[in-house]
């Protein structure tokens, strides 16, 4: 499946959703909807959050799974939190 773009390729501004459509009955909804904060993160960061939730929120488990040290994984999470706080 194609990756959802979150930044405008021309000016790098965060994109917004302007149309939603139903794949079954082809109903279309138009409007301006902001992307959820999580979706504005990079694909790597989204995958990290998914892995974090799936590991039950254990950074130690994450560190083992990713083959990285505990402080490295904690720093990755802290950087994501910082990004989310600015959105």
């Amino acid at each position, binding site marked *: 499946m194609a990756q959802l773009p979150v930044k405008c390729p021309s000016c790098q501004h965060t994109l917004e959703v302007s149309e939603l459509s139903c794949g079954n009955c082809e109903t279309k909804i138009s409007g301006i909807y902001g992307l959820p904060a999580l979706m504005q993160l990079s694909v790597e960061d989204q995958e990290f959050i998914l892995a974090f939730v799936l590991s039950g929120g254990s950074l130690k488990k994450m560190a083992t799974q990713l*083959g990285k*040290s*505990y*402080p*490295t994984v904690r*720093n990755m999470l*802290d950087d994501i939190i910082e990004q989310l706080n600015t959105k």
Partner: protein
Amino acid sequence: MKKILFQAFNFYSEKRLFTIGLLGTIAASLLGFVLHARFDGILDVHFVESIQIYEPLLDNLINIFSLTLFLFIAGKIVNPKTRSIDILNASLIARLPYYLISLANINGYMADLSERMLGLATQQPGALQINPLDITAILIFAFASLLLLIYYLYLLYKGYQVATNAKGALPIGLFVIAVILAEVISKLIIYFIA
């Protein structure tokens, strides 16, 4: 190999780093005893005539304690989530390559050379003549020592950076201050205790 030499703190668990660091420190202290090397300060290695078996180990424990203490305080200022075990591991692991300097005193070569040069300089300063082989040895020793010192400080900063998630100028400034304070305090403690 790059992971081991330059990114150990990013990839290895605290248990593994601590075990390697501790065993390496003990081995290096024994090597220091055999080669008559004293580590009298976090940035110092000196060769001495007589040495007790416990002295290099005590030196290293004091150095590691001083480094860990001041870097931990700096780390807590930078990031309250900083853990003492990560700073301790940075101090233990970063010092390992620096211990290799003691190899310069195999057969008491460097201690003997220093003594000869000091003797020449103090007794006949006007007639100071040094064997070209000795000059080459001194230059190689100085260059290797400098490289090992740079690598030591690089590893120490990388460990501190990973432990504190350091970004920007403030953590660098605090790191420099912590290293200077650790050097002063370790030298004082070793001077008075050891």
